[in-house]
């Protein structure tokens, strides 16, 4: 029996030590990881300078990790073990609550938050007097997941209070009471476009524009939507169904981008199968976008300072405007606004999530 035990132990160790490298050698290298939304390291070139300088070893280490056979499965093993056996409440800051995945934000980053308020005020001050200026804070999922379930979280009441006190000459549009956890994707940070009716109503009423008829939307479904948290947490959670709402207005509208030549459409479902399925909305993150609604019976224009949440909200406001310009201050310097954006007489809405406001040093 002792010999059986000893040989079995050695066999198991040998299986791992020799079997896994062999499996790697026999498996083709992958180019990118959809779950992690990034390109994977490829086999580095062996050069004398790389060996002497050490870069070869570093690249080889990254390559071996990235191309490890069944990498996603191993990552899931770790996550499941941490949650189910060790009963950890989060793994790498990702937690699972009520079927939802979330990412912890435990404290307000004072420096970044203060910078964000200053930046928004700077932009506000440069706007013409003819602009009606509003701001709305998009609650991140932690408001409805972390806060009620004992996870550490930012003091959102304090955050909102300080925004009210700090932002100058802007009218607040409150959104926190309109949503709950189910209005967000289970596997992603973003809200579900099909659940934004109360948000659209609140914003359009506050800004004095017609509220679109919700029954006019035709939902289109795309599956499976593997949100950003799914890949990063490596937890086994059922993917979402991404729903986008189309109608005659969104079908007719034309999108032009500062970064890409030619036009585009409001929804780009062909991008659903790319790195980030959420890029279906307005083709994803871009510095400056203009969406023109040829069917508008108004000349009103909206300048929307936004983060990625704005990509799914803007199409729902199209009926109320002839043109919506979306500015992402993370990629577009505020000093260039006057050169590219006509603010005269436009409605201006600053629409940022709590997460972005907590990392506002991203604003240029």
């Amino acid at each position, binding site marked *: *029996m*002792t*010999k*059986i*035990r*000893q*040989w*079995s*132990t*050695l*066999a*198991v*160790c040998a*299986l*791992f*030590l*020799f079997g*896994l*490298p062999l499996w*790697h050698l026999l498996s083709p290298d992958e180019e990118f990881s959809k779950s992690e939304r990034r390109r994977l390291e490829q086999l580095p070139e062996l050069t004398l300078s790389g060996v*002497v*300088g*050490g870069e070869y*070893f570093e690249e*080889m*280490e990254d390559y*071996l*990790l990235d191309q*490890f056979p069944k*990498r996603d499965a*191993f*990552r899931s*093993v*770790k*996550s499941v*073990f941490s949650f189910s*056996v*060790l*009963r*950890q*409440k*989060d793994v790498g800051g990702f937690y699972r609550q009520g079927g939802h995945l979330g990412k912890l934000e*435990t*404290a307000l980053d004072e420096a970044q938050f203060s910078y964000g308020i200053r930046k928004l005020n700077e932009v506000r001050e440069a706007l013409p007097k003819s602009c009606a200026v509003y701001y709305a804070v998009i609650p991140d999922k932690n408001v409805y997941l972390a806060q009620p379930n*004992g*996870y*550490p979280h930012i003091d959102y009441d304090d955050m909102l209070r300080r925004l009210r006190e700090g932002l100058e000459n802007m009218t607040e549009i409150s959104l926190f009471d309109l949503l709950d956890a189910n209005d967000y994707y289970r596997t992603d940070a973003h809200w579900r476009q099909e659940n934004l009716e109360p948000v659209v109503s609140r914003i359009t009423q506050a800004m004095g524009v017609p509220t679109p008829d919700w029954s006019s939307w035709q939902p289109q479904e795309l599956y499976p939507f593997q949100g950003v948290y799914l890949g990063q947490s*490596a937890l086994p959670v059922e993917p979402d169904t991404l729903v986008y709402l189309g109608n005659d207005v969104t079908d007719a509208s034309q999108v032009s981008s500062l970064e890409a030549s030619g036009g585009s459409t409001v929804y780009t479902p062909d991008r659903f199968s790319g790195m980030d399925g959420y890029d279906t909305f307005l083709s994803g993150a871009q510095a400056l976008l203009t969406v023109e609604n040829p069917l508008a019976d108004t000349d009103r224009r909206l300048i929307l300072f936004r983060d990625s949440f704005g990509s799914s909200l803007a199409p729902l406001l199209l009926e109320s405007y002839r043109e919506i310009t979306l500015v992402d201050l993370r990629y577009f310097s505020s000093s260039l606004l006057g050169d590219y954006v006509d603010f005269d007489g436009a409605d201006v809405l600053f629409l940022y999530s709590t997460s972005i406001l907590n990392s506002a040093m991203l604003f240029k």
Partner: protein
Amino acid sequence: MVFSSVPFLYVFLPVVLLCCFVVPKRFKNLVLLAASLFFYYYGERAYTSLLLISSLSDYLHSLYIEKHRGTQRAKIALVSSIAVNLALLGFFKYADFLISTVNSLLRTSIPLLKVPLPIGISFFTFQTMSYTIDVYRGRVHAQKNLVTMGTFVCLFPQLVAGPIVRYSDITLELEQRSTTLDEVSAGARRFVVGLAKKVLVANAMGELCGLYRSAGEQTTLFALLYAAAFTIQIYYDFSGYSDMAIGLGLLFGFHFPENFNYPYLSRSVSEFWRRWHMTLGGWFRDYVYIPLGGNRVPRLLYIRNIFVVWALTGLWHGAAWNFVVWGLLFGVLLTAEKLFLDKWLQKCGRILPHVYVMAVVVLSFVLFNASSMQGALADIAAVLGLTGAPFAGTLSLYYLKSYAVLLAVSVVGCTPWPKKLALALPEGVRAVLEPVAMAVLLLLVTAYLVDGSFNPFLYFRF
């Protein structure tokens, strides 16, 4: 290269094992030496030459000592060898400590050299010094074969983080070794257990320590969690690495000395240091304490000897004043125990001495892990609840719940109970459970390594 990494586990180790298995016996040392030099080069390209210089220096010195044994020349060669080793150690590890101390005391502004610390320098210089001293003392013969000598110094299982192996420990095995099924399976088991200790426990405790440092919450509970986490981390990290080294040694036919013996069971500080980093304690005992006279001198000199050893022990661990204070703290306690405290502890039952040792050890590790003396005092004050901060807060309660299971498991793992339980099982049950346990541990370790990134060993800075 670290043991707990994908390149080591799934490239280096299988290749080296295969090569050692297929080459004839007379080339095994050469293969091990080449592999060990590559192992060191992978992490320390610039300083591989330093390792070679240290090895060559002691190789030549020892041959000279043996040739002139009993003469003044042998003594001079010994002093020269020690001077070379201490000069290397002094320059690469302590130069900036010395400069900054001089700057503080004399208010000068001598620029720091900022020399990067070679990995494992404290380990391999002590190893080679012990070899030369043992040759001088006549305990061992000088090794004439440079490859064999190089293998002893550079052997990758214990090169960068111990145990500190003496030449006398493996003299015969360097020349002639064999492996049995019993030893190879024991080595594999020991290696996997050590790997699991490092990756599954030590790294997680390290994360908890990092969370404490980065969190804004200042509460006594969080400080206590940090202190407990670091106490667990350093034990699992270091003993895990020693387990891996000893396990690897067995795979290649070497029997390295044990380095840990459940130190957190100790009932006195003296006992703690007989169970913690035993090879370092043994080194200082044999090469510093006993040559100074040990305890066979008048009481004042005896106390001096204790303080010299413990100041040096502290300095060995790090080039900063908090390490010296850490070492001297143990010097004070050891002296007190030897003079009167030990007798008192023996009358206190079984629990109180444990509490005393753990309190001392935990606080000493808080001191040990601080970045400066001021930081150490602040950390200790936080642990003792002397800062006026609230006892608990949202974050500390959250992390206590989140890490409760791992903390509990790792506390149990600090005792011999799991091993005793495993050994008490019938052999038939063990025949099934052991390979299953190995498979589960290897699966989990691999999962953690693939998911994580670089996880360097704590004692690498020594």
